[in-house]
């Protein structure tokens, strides 16, 4: 890797300060949602005791209170002290796992968990691990077959299946 590209890999995607502020704001949003919905269902004292929203209402208030403090602390982080929350190189790796995982999750509902897992494991080995085709195929297919045996045959727990299992009569 050239020096220039290595410097690019170490550039900051988000600073720690940005991440802290972002998360604190998310917590504030959660707090607002919880408080709002608790008031909607009733957070007061009814004739037969506390209403449904009584307990969550205070939970929401405490989240808000705590995250205001966190927000304040985050805002007071001096810019020069704010290290990188995640660097470009790290972020790429994390996305390289996260994006395929999201696609994998979408695939499970569509083509079943066994075929989706085969594709997912194969993708990892081929793309990130640079394995040869034959070992990729052996591990990814073997893995799914093993899970099939354990769950469907041994524990009799049905997992989502798709067209391939239907064609093979394994449903």
């Amino acid at each position, binding site marked *: 890797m050239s020096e220039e590209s290595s410097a690019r890999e170490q550039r900051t995607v988000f600073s720690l300060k940005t991440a802290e502020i972002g998360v604190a704001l998310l917590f504030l949003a959660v707090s607002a949602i919880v408080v709002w919905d608790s008031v909607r269902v009733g957070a007061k004292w009814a004739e037969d005791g506390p209403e449904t929203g009584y307990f969550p209402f205070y939970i929401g208030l405490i989240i808000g209170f705590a995250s205001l403090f966190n927000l304040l602390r985050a805002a007071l982080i001096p810019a020069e002290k704010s290290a990188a929350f995640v660097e470009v190189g790290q972020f790429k790796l994390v996305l390289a796992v996260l994006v395929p995982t999201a696609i994998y999750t979408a695939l499970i509902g569509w083509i079943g968990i066994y075929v989706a897992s085969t594709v997912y494991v194969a993708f990892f080995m081929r793309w990130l691990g640079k394995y040869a085709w034959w070992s990729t195929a052996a591990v990814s297919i073997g893995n799914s077959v093993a899970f099939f045996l354990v769950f469907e045959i041994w524990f009799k727990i*049905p997992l989502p299946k798709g067209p391939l299992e239907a064609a093979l009569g394994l449903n």
Partner: protein
Amino acid sequence: MEEIQSLMQGFAIALSFKNLLLMFTGVILGVIIGVLPGLGGANGVAILLPLTFSMAQTPGGTTSAIILLSCIYWGALFGGAITSILFNIPGEPWSVATTFDGYPLAQNGRAGEALTAAFTSSFVGALVAVVVITFLSPVVAKFALEFGPPEFFSVYLLTFCAFVGMSKEPPFKTLASMMLGFALAAVGTDPVTGTLRLTFGSTHLLVGFDFLVAVIGLFGIGEILLTLEEGLAFKGTSARINLRVVLDTWRELPKYWATSIRSSVVGCFMGIVPGGATPASFMSYGVARRFSKDGEQFGTGKLEGVIAPETAAHAAGTSALLPMLTLGVPGSPTAAVLLGGLLIWGLQPGPLLFIEQKEFVWGLIASMYLGNIAGLIVVLTCVPLFAAILRIPFAVIAPVIMVICAIGAYTVHNSMFDVWMMVVFGIAGYVFKKLGYPLAPLVLAIVLGDRAEASFRQAMLVSQGDMTIFFSNALVGSLTGLAMFLLVWPLLSLLIARMRGD
């Protein structure tokens, strides 16, 4: 000695062929889980919990199920030491302190000694904790029989305030994370009135967020994402343990009896008071360094530096089951998952368990003795095998672990929505961990949220909304008072430090 008699009956249950087989299966699975990145005690048990649903329906099945799951927990506790010593990667947060001296020892070619010391002291710590559980838990349970809703709520309050007071994370982050757990627990049908809340019309949220899915996502996916950042290559030393090394190390261990005792006490205390295994291991490492005559050499590869954290971590991890069984308040995330399992199987953790489910309780306690012996045997004999697992390249093992997590999340309710939630929790776990929002109180709050709320509302009904009920007698008053003290402890310690500093 009623306890001894009950314990013997427990051994009779635990010593059946089926249960012994489950014990070894559990321990081996547990060690593998402990060794693999992204899988640990909490999410390992969470993933395997759905597999026990059908097992628990057979007569005596709940005992077998808890034996399997608790042995996975012991195995995971043992497994953490392997990765710390051989690879300098703490497989579990509580084995971070073990790396300080364990890895240097391995680099000096003394890996076998370090591992033997770690396993043996884990065993000793666990044994002390099990003895404590055997004799203390019936007493605590009997005492807790008198508890009403206010007392139970004050125990919950104490648990959660202890997190704020003793966590090394910023207190307001602990508070935010914990309350997020309570908010997630509140989603769905109100357990008392049946009204829907926080569901926003989604049918998926009718039953709320499942803590199992949260645990799998937060600890599993989040951990994998974190591991990725640190690079993919594991460089480790190899180890072989033969009988000579084991015996030689055992001959040396009695020298460190004082460290063992101190660490066991620290561990048991931190496990029962919900501090957990991780702080216990650090604390006991610190204590050992201060008391040892060659404390300055800690960190360069002292056997004592391995013994101290391992004893404490295992003692804490084991004794975390005491409040779980007697009060229904788990002391660690894994104990919380086990508690969730009990609830799913239809058992009510708490003082009544010791009366209504005697066989279950004593079978479990007896299995703790046997399971730890099984664990010691397994790890001492199979270390090279387990170390080999870590040499599987990350590009192979990471997707396989992800698939296991996805299957685990799916089988909780047979719902794809849970798999999506797992991914969301995974991202949250990654961000929270990087920013120092602790995950343990979040998980505990999701598990205990409904029960804490129920006891709070019952107490409020009794007192007609008067908060002074939490100070109405000496017991509940001192529990609440202690909780309040722990809650403001970070503030107090800050003030004390200020005053000393100026």
